[in-house]
């Protein structure tokens, strides 16, 4: 009887082992998977950085061809078979290469624009943000967590050193002479974040510090070569947000236009194709002329239940592109808006939390 029982139990155990082991060899995959495939080819078009979610590693890169209205998602992953990294943030183009900063991964990826294969990965950076190539053969990369700006050689993408900017740096603008770096954050480097630091890329020195309103987040140059800086006033609404106009020769403030309210957070200052109109987001999208002296109160495009995250304007035809991140946990949308007909002319799904967008011309 006892033997019988053991026999019976043994049988059941063996059966269970067979049933449960049978499925275990099917799949070798153990990381996150997705179904997007890329049809990327090197053409004129719009790159979209999908930031993904913090610590979730689900950022990606998309490419849109405005001529035939096609979109390629997961442009990096599908060629290199690895995730781009945690929070891809900005993209810059140089010599048939794209340079992408990946913020929370502390790295910069350099890829070949012909097929998007990886050329180089620069690691060990603390929190790379914006990338600015210069005619001096140097690439400057701002950093959120450090006052040191990273300097990379544009020939071989070797790290050549860093430049002490004195403060944490964010958005940058290069006017073929100087670099204007916004001091966006006071969080990691505890210095007031209400300035723009002017850097000479040749000597790699700070030559001027220009006061603006708190938390400057974006910077553009108009047709008169003047520089516009948009400040949100701080995430806690410490100050009234403002648009500051800087004279690039005198390195001085020409004009500061305060916003009508304090409890707002304007971002994504963008200039149109002619360099005479400014656009920015603040729930919805607003537009104004560079000659205006007050901030418009009427929206140019209404928010309409969208979570608008970023803006771009096609330098060729002036079409305005803006992103809608929806719930920030699914593939977001890019809406293409024709400013002449004042209507949406295309929309397409990209990756999670679409952020920075940049036009590329081969």
């Amino acid at each position, binding site marked *: 009887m006892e033997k019988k029982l053991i026999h019976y139990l043994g049988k059941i155990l063996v059966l269970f082992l067979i049933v449960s082991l049978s499925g275990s060899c099917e799949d070798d995959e153990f990381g996150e998977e997705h179904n997007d495939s890329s049809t990327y080819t090197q053409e004129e078009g719009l790159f979209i950085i999908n930031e993904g979610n913090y610590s979730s590693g689900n950022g990606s890169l998309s490419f849109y061809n405005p001529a035939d209205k096609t979109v390629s998602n997961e442009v990096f992953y599908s060629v290199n078979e690895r995730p781009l990294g945690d929070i891809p943030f900005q993209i810059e183009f140089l010599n048939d290469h794209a340079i992408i900063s990946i913020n929370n991964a*502390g790295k910069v990826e350099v890829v070949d624009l012909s097929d998007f294969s990886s050329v180089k990965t620069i690691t060990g950076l603390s929190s790379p943000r914006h990338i600015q190539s210069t005619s001096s053969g140097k690439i400057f990369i701002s950093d959120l967590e450090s006052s040191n700006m990273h300097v990379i050689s544009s020939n071989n993408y070797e790290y050549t050193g860093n430049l002490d900017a004195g403060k944490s740096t964010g958005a940058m603008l290069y006017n073929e002479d100087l670099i204007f770096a916004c001091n966006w954050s006071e969080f990691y480097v505890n210095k007031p974040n209400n300035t723009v630091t002017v850097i000479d890329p040749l000597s790699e020195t700070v030559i001027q510090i220009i006061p603006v309103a708190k938390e400057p987040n974006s910077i553009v140059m108009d047709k008169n070569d003047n520089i516009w800086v948009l400040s949100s006033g701080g995430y806690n609404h410490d100050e009234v947000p403002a648009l500051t106009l800087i004279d690039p020769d005198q390195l001085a403030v020409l004009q500061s236009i305060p916003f009508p309210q304090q409890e707002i957070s304007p971002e994504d200052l963008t200039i149109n194709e002619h360099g005479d109109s400014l656009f920015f987001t603040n729930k919805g999208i607003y537009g104004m002329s560079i000659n205006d002296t007050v901030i418009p109160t009427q929206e140019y495009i209404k928010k309409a239940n969208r979570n608008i995250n970023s803006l771009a304007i096609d330098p060729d035809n002036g079409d305005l592109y803006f992103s809608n991140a929806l*719930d920030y946990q699914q593939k977001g949308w890019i809406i293409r808006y024709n400013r002449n007909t004042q209507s949406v002319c295309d929309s397409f799904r990209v990756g999670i939390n679409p952020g920075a967008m940049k036009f590329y011309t081969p």
Partner: protein
Amino acid sequence: MKRISIIILTFFAIIASSEAQEKQDTITLEAVSIQEQRSSQMNGVNRQRMDSLDMQLIKPLSLSATLASHSPVFIKSYGQGALSTSSFRGAGASHTQVLWNGVNINSPTLGQTDFSLIPMNIMDQLTLLKGGNSIFSTSGGLGGAIHLDNKANWNDTLTIYVNQKISSLKGSETSVENNFITGKLLINTRLFHIQSENEYTYKNNTKGKPPYPEETQKNAAYRQSGLMENIHYKIDRNNTLSARIWAQSNFRELPRPLTVKDMKRNEEQSNEFVRTQLSWENQKGKDHIFIRTAWFDESYTYKNPVAGLQTTNKSRLFSSHAAYKYYISSDATIETGLNSDLYNVRSSGYEDNFTRNHLSAFTSFMYRPWTRLQTLWVVRAEKINNKKINILPSASLKFSLLKPSRLIWMANFSRNYHYPTMNDKYWNPGGNPGLEAEYGNSYETGLQYKKQNKQKNLLLEASATYYYSSIHNWILWQPDSIASYWTPSNLKKVHSQGIETGLTITKKYKNSMFRLNTQYTYTSTKNAEKLYPGDASVGKQLIYVPKHSGNVMAFVNYKQWDLIYKYNYTGKRYTTSDNSRYMPDFMLHDLEIGKTWELNKAKLSTSIRVDNILNTDYQSVAWYPMPGRVFHLKLGLKWKRN
């Protein structure tokens, strides 16, 4: 190698206890069924109770491992000893209410419990109240409630257990328990210390094409040490006073996900708590009075040395509870009572101190109008601070289709709500003081079958339940459009339905025993409303809730040998709300073999357990690699004076 052999030698030199041996003398088939009959009102609801045999088997594990291998609750784990949160019936982590001897231990700031911080060997009984059935003991359990209870053992006048375990992750666990009775006084003391370097190799699948390079997990160490004290004093035949203390100190490093840069100095988290309870129970004739007060003091610190960040939360709970139960007849019982939970929270993340008074009046009525039909009616009236009163009703019935109670049909309807957590309301920046409570109705129906054959010493239990619930005002954090920080709002409407099935077979023969416990759970939790133009999340499964999950535990005891096999299947989990990305399913197999020696009044036992015996590469949460094969060596000693 030398070091390892020293560790092993030391290990054998240390005296330790045994779970395994316990089964033979304390577990009988009858005990299982008697326990079922004894439980009075709670018997009216759909619950799952880990009986003493299961508890013996799972004792060495943490609550998170226990729930993963023995219950339909899905555990989302960031790793061994790392944050483990629950999804019960497809609901969110804060929708599982966890109660220790009746008092809610969910963090008032986060609203959830971290299941890896609760070692099971300081608890004696685990009961799950599924879905709306949880209204019986608490509100807020939109997914369900988990009861962790300590039971007084008045049988043995002096018992000492010592337990020592080591693992191949450079970990060790030591626990001691002493149960002491003198006259009318019972003192039960448990101490434990758990520590692990938690060092293991994994394949880094962020690095190009397979084969992936092997790397070593670092910065994932953890430590937990604690004390559990349960004191009972029988004043006389009808009156018992009980005092309980649970103090614990926890520390863990927070390893980065693979896609995030390697930091020189790691983030870390520590927390300390003291939880105390004092209760008086009076049972005389048909009256039963129970009065309890509880005082909890907890602190929690998060440190990020690179960012120079430190967040500290301190919370206090003063809880009072009074209940009166009256046995009207053998077929009717009524209970009514009042519970007040007064929280006070201080946090470096808040602008101010915040208090919350959660008042709850409840009445439950168990009535058996007919021998075959048992009904349970519960109503709670709740008030939080100065908000309006919420009425939460629940009705359950159990109907015997086959005599005697072999096949039971059961059904439940409940209405429940969950108040926003303190962080939801007050976190600075982002907290939204205007948040409303999440609420919903739930319905369920199911069958329970039980067959006991005393001649053949066979017990068969099977159950299947279907449930449907809706949750309105589901709180979701997302970046705010007027500011650059995240803020919560009452955004989503979620429909959840599913099937839970279970099968248990217990077979005994002379000096051997076999037990098989299997569960399969199907969970469909869907986003029901379109919130944005182009929203593709409507009708899609919520993230990190597997549709399919199941587990098997087979236990064989032959003479002094034990063999335990565990199997866990976790289905595909989506990681995006439009279900465009997912984590693949995985299966884990664990095997344990143990032997026990009887030495006069003592029992010595030892066992070897191998987790993930097939060395499967898997991630439970995206980019957090989990360990492969892990070995555990255990030695236990139990000494008893009757």
